[in-house]
């Protein structure tokens, strides 16, 4: 099994953005060209999150997802603003391979079970955004804006029990800092569930990714700033990981 390196594309209205600590968003380009480039470079997977969809009045932007999917021949996870099962169906039809749910899982966790029953557990990536508070890790919804009162380990286990196929664990504190993943956080989630865990928030160099896998046990590493703001690439990340003895996918040369 190969450890995946997953660029996270945060999408707000018409463009890609990246912030620090889920704040001070900065535009970093357009979505479509980014997807094309990542595809040509054969990344392992892409995660695409609409960070303002939970505030939107209307329905999700299926047309854009459809457009993004046109050029994506690696797995694509789409999230942001999902509240109903019919939206999941439309997203899958539009080209998503998996969906990521976050805010709704606190209000109506049964949705995870519904998605898992209809489309399989592998289709549901449960995303958890966490801040460290009073020596524990607390979960936040609404793109990090609202405290939920749930502690991360208990919550990750509940999501697994309800049918999540993977957990995307993001440290809001480390997000965008490029100072490294919150390794104890990732490790505690990895230890609490049996499903694959994707580490997110804080990657600034390849060693951070190696650490997330070797020290914290992550099945995949997600990152954004490192690819937006530095010269570092997913391909080189995998070379470094391979040197550290981590199994990674090698591109098919044909």
């Amino acid at each position, binding site marked *: 099994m190969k450890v995946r390196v997953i660029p996270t594309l945060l999408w707000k209205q018409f463009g890609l953005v990246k912030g620090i600590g889920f704040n001070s968003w900065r535009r970093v380009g357009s979505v479509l060209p980014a997807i094309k480039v990542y595809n040509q470079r054969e990344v392992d997977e892409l995660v695409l999150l609409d960070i303002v969809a939970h505030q939107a009045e209307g329905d999700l932007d299926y047309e854009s997802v459809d457009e993004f999917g046109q050029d994506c021949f*690696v797995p694509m996870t789409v999230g942001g603003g999902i509240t109903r099962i019919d939206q999941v169906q439309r997203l899958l039809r539009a*080209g998503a391979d998996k969906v990521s749910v976050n805010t709704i899982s606190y209000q109506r966790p049964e949705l995870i079970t519904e998605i898992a029953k*209809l489309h399989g557990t*592998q289709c549901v990536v449960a995303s958890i955004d966490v801040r460290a508070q009073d020596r524990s890790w607390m979960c936040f919804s609404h793109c990090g804006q609202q405290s939920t009162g749930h502690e991360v380990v208990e919550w990750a286990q509940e999501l697994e029990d309800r049918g999540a*196929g993977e957990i995307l664990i993001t440290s809001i504190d480390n997000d965008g800092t490029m100072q490294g993943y919150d390794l104890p956080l990732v490790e505690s989630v990895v230890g609490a569930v049996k499903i694959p865990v994707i580490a997110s928030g804080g990657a600034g160099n390849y060693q951070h990714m190696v650490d997330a896998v070797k020290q914290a046990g992550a099945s995949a590493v997600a990152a954004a700033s490192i690819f937006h703001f530095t010269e570092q690439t997913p391909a080189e990340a995998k070379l470094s990981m391979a040197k550290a003895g981590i199994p990674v996918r090698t591109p*098919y040369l044909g």
Partner: protein
Amino acid sequence: MKVGVVDYGVGNLGSILRALEELRVTPVLVNRAVDLHAAESIVLPGVGSFFSCMKLLEKGGWINALREEVISYERPLLAVCLGMQLLADSGTEGSPNGKSCQGLGLVSGCVKSLQSQGCALRVPHVGWNSISHVQSGDHLFNHIPSGTDFYFVHSFGFVPAYPEAIVATVDYGVTLTAAVRSGNIWGTQFHPEKSSRAGFRLLKNFLEGPDC
């Protein structure tokens, strides 16, 4: 070459259609069983559970249509992911009361959970994993060496009744079936349409047929 992609109401067909378009063929979404005969080769996708897919195939009259095209007319069939599992005689995933549910019966065998096959690793088996050829020479893997990575997502796996049907395996704690073949029928547990260049090559091999 007219490639028919069976649209019986599940999952994401967009990516398989677009992958076929990249290979310069014109895939046709076939959404009525009576139209299947017009296709020269057939792709059967599958997402969800064995039980729910079989119910949909049954409802749309696909079971007989598929069997007829594949057995009587010997149309080449490529079944992908859960599609491959549907080729089996039976499976239990998603069935109420856990009883086994009949499959298409095109490749002898049954579908079992990865845990019941002895897999102690994290399930679903999701991500890139390398395949190994079982017997060399199946044209589906032309120019695709053992060790090539493909994208997998599954919690159940196909256990063929006859090991000769297995053309490739994947190791995930235990050895699992990665691809099967029985005559003009092929199945892959992995997703070629999501496996980038290696996947394009495999689809191309399927479309070109054994003689090329």
